[in-house]
């Protein structure tokens, strides 16, 4: 091999690599809405699916909200989103409530045909963890480093997220456990932050509360499709009671959505349009709303499984990136280690300070208690004597 050959090879290699470098974004750009086997410009480009299911109520008489969320949980799981990709926020005080005639079960229909609680439920945020703050933190990813992976929404810019909320709401707010409330602005801002941080590709937001449509009225970030159970000034109603459980078991809107979903399987080609067309005032007794102005795919081309199902698209990442990406994480332990070393003497120091700062703690210990009280007594007598002296002095002076 002479130098000329080598130069040719070098040039070839350089050109091919530069072309390859230029090709990637270009190809990505053109292929963004073109997936093989589907009509161009309308298919989703997402590579993973997530669901955030929030039941914002607690207490026995809100059984139906628990059932709503669990019903959604069952559906998304059935359609292929794994537990690792589902964040379920649930007060979870229905199944094991002492008022529950069927302990350990939650049913969503009056015949009690299907136990939604079952054996395979993973509640990520339970009881008092269901707060507005935790919800926003989950969405925006601003979580403490100690938080386990199962409680995080580990999405990227290729994630489709299904956000479902149920509870007692009002005009532009939703109550969390009768304690605090989240406003429509809070959610809209959280979604915008997610967009800017490239935490989603598309979002389907669904709310089943009173005046639910006001919850998505403030959204302004792109690629969000939203739907709700009732208009401003309108209540959402429960669907049916179970006379043995003694409370309403599910809300109308969720009931009919779930009923529609029962006909869907992982390969279903039904679109969101079909779902929205199935809404009917006669059955739900409220006017469900849809907001698609932020969403830039036609609804009839958007598959239900784009949000409810789990995709298995894999994307091949170039080797160089995949090699580069783990490096910071491999470095970090060292950093941590280095940071730790100077802090070694601090425990000793801090114990010293505590002993100096809290003499009273020592007084408390039994051996020194008597001395402490003695000193106490002396103090108080001394202060009284001083007081008396002062009074006497003044009295003497003024005489």
């Amino acid at each position, binding site marked *: 091999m002479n130098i000329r050959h080598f130069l040719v090879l070098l040039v070839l290699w350089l050109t091919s690599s530069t072309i390859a470098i230029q090709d990637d974004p270009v190809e990505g750009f053109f292929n963004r809405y073109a997936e093989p086997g589907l009509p161009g410009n309308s298919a989703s480009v997402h590579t993973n699916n997530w669901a955030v299911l929030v039941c914002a109520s607690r207490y026995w008489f809100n059984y139906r909200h628990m059932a709503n969320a669990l019903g959604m949980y069952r559906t998304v799981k059935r359609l292929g989103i794994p537990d690792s990709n589902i964040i379920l926020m649930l007060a979870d005080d229905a199944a094991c409530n002492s008022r529950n005639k069927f302990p350990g079960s939650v049913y969503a229909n009056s015949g009690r045909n299907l136990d939604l609680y079952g054996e395979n439920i993973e509640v990520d945020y339970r009881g008092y963890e269901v707060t507005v703050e935790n919800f926003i933190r989950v969405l925006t990813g601003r979580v403490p480093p100690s938080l386990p992976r199962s409680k995080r929404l580990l999405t990227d810019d290729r994630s489709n997220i299904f956000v479902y909320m149920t509870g007692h709401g009002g005009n532009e707010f939703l109550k969390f456990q009768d304690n605090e409330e989240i406003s429509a602005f809070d959610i809209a801002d959280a979604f915008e932050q997610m967009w800017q941080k490239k935490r989603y590709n598309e979002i389907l937001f669904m709310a089943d509360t009173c005046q639910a449509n006001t919850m998505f009225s403030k959204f302004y970030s792109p690629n969000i499709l939203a739907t709700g159970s009732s208009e401003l000034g309108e209540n959402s109603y429960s669907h049916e009671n179970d006379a043995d459980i003694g409370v309403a078991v599910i809300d109308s809107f969720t009931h009919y959505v779930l009923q529609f979903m029962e006909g869907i399987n992982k390969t279903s080609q039904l679109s969101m349009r079909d779902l929205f067309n199935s809404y009917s005032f006669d059955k739900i007794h409220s006017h469900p709303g849809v907001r698609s102005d932020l969403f830039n795919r036609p609804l009839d081309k958007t598959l239900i499984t784009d949000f409810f199902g789990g995709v298995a698209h894999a994307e091949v990442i170039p080797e160089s990136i995949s090699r580069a990406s783990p490096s910071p994480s491999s470095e970090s332990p060292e950093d941590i280690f280095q940071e730790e070393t100077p802090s070694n003497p601090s425990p000793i120091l801090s114990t010293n300070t505590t002993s100096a700062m809290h003499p*009273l703690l020592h*007084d*408390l210990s039994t051996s020194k*208690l008597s001395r*402490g*009280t003695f000193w*106490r*007594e002396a*103090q*108080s*007598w*001394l*202060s*009284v004597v*001083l*007081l008396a002296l*002062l*009074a006497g002095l*003044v*009295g003497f*002076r*003024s005489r």
Partner: protein
Amino acid sequence: MRVPLTLPALVVVRLLLALSPLPALLKWDHQLSSPLTSFVKLQEGVHLYKNGIDPYQGGSFYHSPIYLSLFSTILPTSPLPSLVLWTAVDALAAYALLCIWRARVGEKGRSREGLVVAAYLLNPYLFLSNLALSTASIENMLMLWVLAFASSHNPSPSLLTLSLLTTLSLPSILLLPPLIMLLLSSPLSKLKNPVWKDIRRALPLLAEFIVYEVALCLVCTLGSGGWQWVGRCWGVGLTLPDLTPNPGLWWYFFTEMFDHFRPFFLMVFSVHLVIYVIPICLKFQHDPLYASFLLLGILGIFKPYPTLADPGLFLSFGVVFCEVWAYLRHPFPTFLLHLHSSLLLPLFHHLWLGDGTGNANFFYASTLVFGLAGAGGLIDAVWAGLRCGVGDVNGKVREGMGVGREGREMGEVGGGREGEMEVDWEVIQE
């Protein structure tokens, strides 16, 4: 030391009452003792203190270290001796009121001294608080002695007592300006001798007060073994950590308020207390005793943790200013307001916390009525005081007013009695 017969007689009556089951019923009452003045809390604090635990480390003890020292050494904390002590406190307070009365009216008012004493000892606001062993009674006593010393021109004892009172309850410091004015002039109303002629004379008094205050702070620190008492005892009025209901106007606002507004409104409420001092001292510079009377009324309404004893002191103190009564415009409606609110307060308190049929808004509404009653009395007193002064300026018909009028009123002034809170006003006509 001659004392009208009423004083011992009423003290005996009081001692008999102290033996009745009444004190045990009253000592938990929110209207008679706030967390700052509650005897139960004091007992708890003293107990902790005696066992070598710093009571200020917990979240419920707000009394001054002076109380701590006194009650752990020379003063009793068991119920019966305490009741005797508290009765003695009231007797001393009534005597102080008598001294002020003598300094103000002189020999002329001698025949009514019994009524003056009765006005203090029979004021239901005061004697119920006293039976509940509220330390507000002690503070009232000290306050009256501050003014009594000042009225008899004993500057040092007066200033020392005020500084002691300030360590016990911070808002009392607002009384310092009128007190200094009082020490520089006399307890009589003098339009022709403005105090401000020789303002420099005030400085030594101020310095003396500061010296006493510093000394007492050191005593406090010594007694409690640290500086923590400053935040727990003085700070409590400024930061309002304890929202136990009381008849004042602060607690409900701060239960309803969002936390991020708290500091701002705490400042507003605290400053609001202070802004009255200078206008009143300026307007009533001819009569500093009256100015301090008005400030006591303001404290009774707007203090952070008032109890019934605070407005009670204002009402009973009003007895001293007999020449002003004639100018009151609406004493009878004020009396009715007091009657209504003093019945509504315990009733709504019971409906809320006992019966469970009402809620906090009920009680709050009654504290508003109570505040209205207090404000009605206060505004009337300001008006009457000003009117009195104007009358003097015009030089009309005021010859011998202090003397003759009092003599004539004598037959009509009622001492306080059951159900009458406003012994001093309701009696007098326009």
